[in-house]
């Protein structure tokens, strides 16, 4: 077994390990270790044994497989186009995938995705969804959406804990040298320049969804090197700047600088700057994070939604024009029986790596390999508190970052509701950016709830020495294969481009088809796949 100190050292970094001596292992009273249903995963492997009874077959023109943002958005689009003859099958009891949220009493909190940025005028479909939700109240004359005040992240938005005090902002400016600050402003200027760049067709170099941006060779060339090497080439040396940029890469991609494509690294900053004068598009968030969008979409679709359905097999038709020729077999968790669907079209809204496991003869027939699709694993903890912890410096924000820790800090779920006192739930994020340095992935998987809870609290006690006395519950979610990795060469490489092309009657929709994991991308692919299906049915 790994010692506690070694574990902390490798998972949290130096600063956390150094304080373990004074922190006893105090485990909160309650909590759970959550994660995908492993038993069901095995059923996916043994899918051949599942044959639905004759009475358990249904004919449904369109089946959506997977109820994350991509699948739900596809359903939303179909319904918007007046098409209601579809069913969405989701494995978990809850919809939303990596955008799902939890609720305990009156507290709502995210389980992974927790914000979006205000869409640019280019992203009309998303603006439309947000309008329908009442999040966008108006659209100005130049097409810029006006977001309702209470959905914009409330001030104070973010702070960073550095040298024993909290300071406002994401950049660890406290104690920074003149040179550090100089390099930071050079970096900001450079990002602003990229944000202003337009290609010959007038498209932004960096835009969300990325499909609305440019494929100009100057932009794409950035994808061939790592963010680290690109920054080195700019002559930057400030450790604080590297930390700041790496924070962004870990936050959005779960990757360290040397494994993030420079194109993706710049996208993180430049795609969110609309004009030179404004630093970044405003953050939109809810107590339940992006679970709020999931709630809206599921309430719109309720009739078509089926949860607890593990889709095990999709068999394409011999002849594409054969009505109801595509079969989908799912395992109904509640009835503990397989059920079957015959459909004209299927929207596969699962991550790509599942395609060969679920779609019959996928690799042989399409000649595609999913090996290039690499994913980051994450740990997310929801820490329930009976009161607010003691702290030093700038007051509690929505996003709270610990400089030097390998965690990403925590988001305060009660912030957006204007609730500033008493009990709260802090959502703590941890990307496994360098699992290789851990003894092994298996060992990590063997860690139990108590080990993880200990780790989470050790990290939080760096900034809040009294946090252990306030914790009532720690729930932990292990996300494996949760976030597609934009490592150098992937986003603009051949595998990603090929993956979005329909396989006969099977259409693909998932955020990983963009090479980056964002709501904007999942939504884009959901809408795109729905449009493909609508078009195919029309012809």
């Amino acid at each position, binding site marked *: 077994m790994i010692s506690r100190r070694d574990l902390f050292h490798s998972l949290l970094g130096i600063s956390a390990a150094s304080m373990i001596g004074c922190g006893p292992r105090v485990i909160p009273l309650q909590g759970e270790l959550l994660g995908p249903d492993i038993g069901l995963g095995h059923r996916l492997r043994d899918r051949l044994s599942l044959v639905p009874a004759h009475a358990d077959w249904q004919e449904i023109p369109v089946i959506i497989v997977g109820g994350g943002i991509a699948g739900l958005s596809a359903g939303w689009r179909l319904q918007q186009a007046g098409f209601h003859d579809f069913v969405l099958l989701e494995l978990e009891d809850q919809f939303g995938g990596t955008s799902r949220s939890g609720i305990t009493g009156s507290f709502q909190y995210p389980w992974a995705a927790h914000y979006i940025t205000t869409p640019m005028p280019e992203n009309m479909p998303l603006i439309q969804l947000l309008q329908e939700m009442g999040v966008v109240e108006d659209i100005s004359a130049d097409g810029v959406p006006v977001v309702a*005040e209470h959905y914009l992240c409330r*001030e104070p938005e973010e702070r960073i804990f550095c040298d024993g005090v909290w300071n406002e902002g994401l950049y660890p400016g406290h104690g920074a040298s003149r040179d550090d600050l100089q390099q930071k402003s050079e970096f900001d200027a450079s990002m602003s320049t990229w944000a202003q760049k337009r290609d010959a067709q007038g498209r932004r170099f960096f835009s969300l969804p990325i499909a609305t941006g440019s494929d100009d060779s100057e932009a794409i060339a950035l994808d061939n090197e790592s963010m680290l090497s690109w920054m080195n080439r700019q002559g930057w040396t400030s450790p604080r700047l590297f930390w700041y940029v790496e924070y962004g890469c870990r936050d959005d991609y779960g990757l360290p600088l040397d494994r993030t494509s420079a194109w993706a690294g710049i996208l993180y900053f430049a795609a969110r700057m609309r004009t030179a004068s404004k630093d970044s598009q405003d953050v939109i968030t809810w107590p339940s994070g992006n679970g709020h969008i999931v709630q809206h979409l599921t309430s719109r679709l309720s009739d078509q939604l089926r949860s607890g359905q593990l889709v095990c097999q999709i068999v394409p038709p011999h002849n594409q024009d054969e009505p109801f020729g595509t079969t989908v077999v799912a395992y109904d968790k509640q009835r503990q029986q397989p059920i079957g669907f015959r459909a004209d079209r299927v929207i596969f809204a699962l991550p790509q790596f599942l395609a060969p496991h679920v779609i019959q003869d996928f690799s042989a027939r399409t000649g595609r390999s999913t090996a290039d699709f690499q994913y980051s694993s994450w740990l997310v903890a929801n820490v329930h508190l009976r009161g607010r912890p003691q702290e030093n410096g700038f007051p509690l924000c929505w996003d709270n970052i610990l400089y030097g820790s390998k965690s990403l800090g925590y988001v305060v779920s009660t912030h957006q509701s204007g609730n500033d006192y008493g009990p709260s739930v802090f959502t703590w994020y941890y990307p496994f950016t360098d699992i290789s340095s851990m003894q092994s992935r298996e060992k990590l998987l063997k860690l139990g709830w108590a080990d993880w809870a200990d780790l989470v609290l050790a990290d939080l006690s760096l900034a809040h020495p009294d946090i252990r006395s306030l914790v009532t519950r720690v729930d932990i979610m292990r996300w494996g294969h949760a976030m597609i990795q934009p490592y150098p060469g992937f986003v603009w490489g051949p595998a990603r481009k090929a993956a979005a092309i329909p396989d006969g009657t099977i259409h693909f929709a998932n955020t990983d088809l963009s090479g980056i994991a964002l709501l904007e991308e999942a939504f884009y692919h959901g809408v795109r796949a729905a449009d493909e299906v609508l078009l195919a049915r029309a012809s």
Partner: protein
Amino acid sequence: MINRAPLSLLYLNVLAIATCGLIYELLAGTLASYVLGDSVTQFSFVIGVYLSAMGVGAWLSQYILSNLARYFIEIELALALIGGVSAPVLFLAFPWIDWFRPLLFGMVFSIGVLVGLELPLLMRILKEYLDFGDLVSRVLTFDYIGALLASLLFPILFVPYLGLVRTSLLFGMLNALVAWWSTYLLRPLLSSRGLERLRWRAIVVTLLLGVGFFKADQLTTLAEENALGGKIIFTTHSPYQRIAITQKRLGFQLFLNGHLQFNSVDEYRYHEALVHPAMLGNEPPRHVLIMGGGDGLAVRECLKYSSLESLSLVDLDPAMTQLSKKFEPLNRLNHGAFSDPRVKVINEDAFIWIGKPGPQYDAVIIDFPDPGSYSVGKLYTTRFFRLLQKRLKPAALVSVQCTSPLVAPKSYWCIVRTLEATGFHVRPYHAPVPSFGIWGFALASMSEFDSTPLPFDRVQGELRFLTNDVLKGLFELPADLQPMDSEINRLDNQALVHYYDSEWNRSD
């Protein structure tokens, strides 16, 4: 068996216990007059209860027939504990309980009984060694010296330098130490059974009180007292804020997180100016909402209208609204506002409360603290004001306290402009309040309105500051309070907090 030297030490015991006894009595009397007001009454009651309890103790002493030394030490320990914690317990308990007087007099009575037991027992212990005349004269001499010491040092030394809480704990410790060294002094009279235990108990009591003594900083710090510029007669740390009440020669003052909320000497100017413009401008108001204002002073002004049928007061902190009811001087200042059956107190963050559905009001008084933090700044945002509008009858008037337009003009006009940005018609006005300086307010309504108020005959009860002419004058802005532009305060920019921070820091 007790030789000569320890005998004189025993007189020191008399001195110590006499001092302690009187100190406890003085503490109780002082504390009661702080929190209940009316010092003559409180002091007489405390002294009366204390003296009669001493008589009870002396009478009870006859039933103690053997083991005198042992009983004496036990009594010292009990006294150390009860006397030592008396002031902190009373301080902490009084805003929370309805039976403060029974608690106070119960404590005074127990202390009196124990003190009444002490001397008779000690005299009976000593009578073996002295003739009766000597005994009485010496013991009484030291008793009176102790009393003299206590009554001189208490006001000169202990109250100003230690405060009531620490004085109480200190003398508890002294009592416990007397118990401890008596186990040595009176050793020949004590059986060895349980002696070690007794000593340990004495040590534990001393240590406990000692810990309390050093932790008492969390109750009142002298530094804070200096900062607030008056003697602190009450403080508490609620989960929301630090509440402190100080006393000066004239009147008392309430501080929240170190910021003055009112001075009893001139608060009527502030509260009359805050409340009456909103209450007078329209039809006689029947349903009124106050947000903030947990001191009940704005409630007092609203209760001067016989048209009032219901008044809801939303204040974050139950400790504050409780205090306004239980702290007698404040309860008297607000005319027992919280005992009026029409008044309903809601302890909730107004930002959360206003977002829920509920009835509409004829008039709203907004008396939040100054926007010095984000958690208060949210209460002055466009979001908050828009939610407020859903709770207003069409012609309702809203008055808002808006910090000082002279010290913090940007902040002041930011509040006015933010109200306007949400569709309110706004009339800025101001009033001089000596403890605060020139103070700023805003009167707002969703309907067009005239700021010339109706005559005052609607007001029942005395107004000390406002007259019709004065009120009209408050809406005249002098040259140094002229309007200016400002950013609009929104949840996602909290512009007001930034203005406020820079303006008040500059003025400090």
